[in-house]
């Protein structure tokens, strides 16, 4: 998988770039797209590809290491930590969506939408993503 496919960043977000990177790695590992021992791009490589400050990347990697998702191999390369051999069951993967959906739910209440309206939109967005 190329660097571009693993990582993308949204500018203009209230979520700092280092946290966007952390969440992307977390989701890829949970889905089994990244698994134990797989090497991830070096700080230099990712900073150059995304045109972001190298400290932003190293901050994300250090926090991912602290959370047990990545391990530092001898030398400098980081790999996915040994215990992440399989995709997590979907029941625990879906929990990763909770913070985003809680935020959407709160905004939906502020907009005084019914759950049917909000769910219909979510369904529609999910369907759009499935189109080739």
């Amino acid at each position, binding site marked *: 998988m190329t660097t571009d496919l693993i990582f993308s*960043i949204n500018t*203009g977000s*209230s979520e700092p770039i280092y946290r966007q990177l952390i969440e992307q790695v977390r989701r890829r590992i949970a889905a089994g797209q990244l698994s134990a021992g797989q090497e991830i791009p070096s700080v230099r490589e990712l*900073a150059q590809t995304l*045109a972001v*400050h190298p*400290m932003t990347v190293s901050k994300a990697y250090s926090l991912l290491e602290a959370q047990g998702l990545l391990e530092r191999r001898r030398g400098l390369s980081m790999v996915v930590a040994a215990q992440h051999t399989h995709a997590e069951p979907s029941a625990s993967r879906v929990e990763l969506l909770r913070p985003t959906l809680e935020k959407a739910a709160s905004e939906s209440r502020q907009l005084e939408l019914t759950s049917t309206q909000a769910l219909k939109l979510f369904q529609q967005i999910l369907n759009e993503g499935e189109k080739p």
Partner: protein
Amino acid sequence: MTATPPASVANAHVAARPTANMRGLNLAYGKKPVLKGLDWQLHPGQVIGLLGRNGAGKTTLLEAMLGLRDLHGGTVELFGESGPQLSDATRARIGYVPQRSDLFEGFTANELLAYFRSFYPHWNTAKVDGLLSRWDIARDQPIARLSGGQQQRLSIIRALAHEPDLLVLDEPVSSLDPAGRREFLRELVDQVLDRGTTVVLSTHILSDLERVAFNVAFLRDGQIAVQAPLDQLLDTTRQVTGTREQVDALCARLHAQVLQRRALSGNQELALLTLPPGPAAEDDGLPLQAVNLEELFMELA
């Protein structure tokens, strides 16, 4: 030279002598004060985005830092040397891309670069050639016939050619398309990776700034109103609307500080709060809203 204790990696850049140290800068145009006792430090290896509204004095500040403006008060030190008259050795450590192109328009790119090369003890010919080719700049045409974007790229190449330790960029990419801007940002990242260059970048293109500027500084009312790592500002700043009493009570509950407040209609105000470090606080009373860089700019610049 005296031995210094090893600094931890985390605060190494703070422990080292600042690349630029400005104290109490005062400058006025006629009766209109622009810089009002401004203090500002740039530390080695930092990439700092300088933000401010039009007319806030960003260009004036950058020019004052480089000794290109007469100050009415205050001191500037670059690499430990006091301005405004800098030695050639210190000048050679600075690269500057001014807002307005100052290239000699009758020269060709080759002539211009050969001319500047004579001033510097150090010149990276391979980098210059590589960038001229990659950025598709005609070497033998008069600069006046290059497009605005190509002139801007040439100005950037000139500033990078002597491998400066401090790079001052004043709206360097206003004429570049998104692809050109991305290439420029990659070049900046390379400078930071390879040389630990200190960079000050002034631009209104916030998406560019967000990528490369680990630190942001807001110039307002003639002073640096806020300077912090952007990550930290986004992590700890929340926006809230309510009466002054509600906002104050909220701050007391969350141990938060008011960063900025602005009166709205009625007795409402919009406040930016700085939360204490740690997991982001929630409050049942007033909804706390995360902010992005543009919203920070609207309130702090």
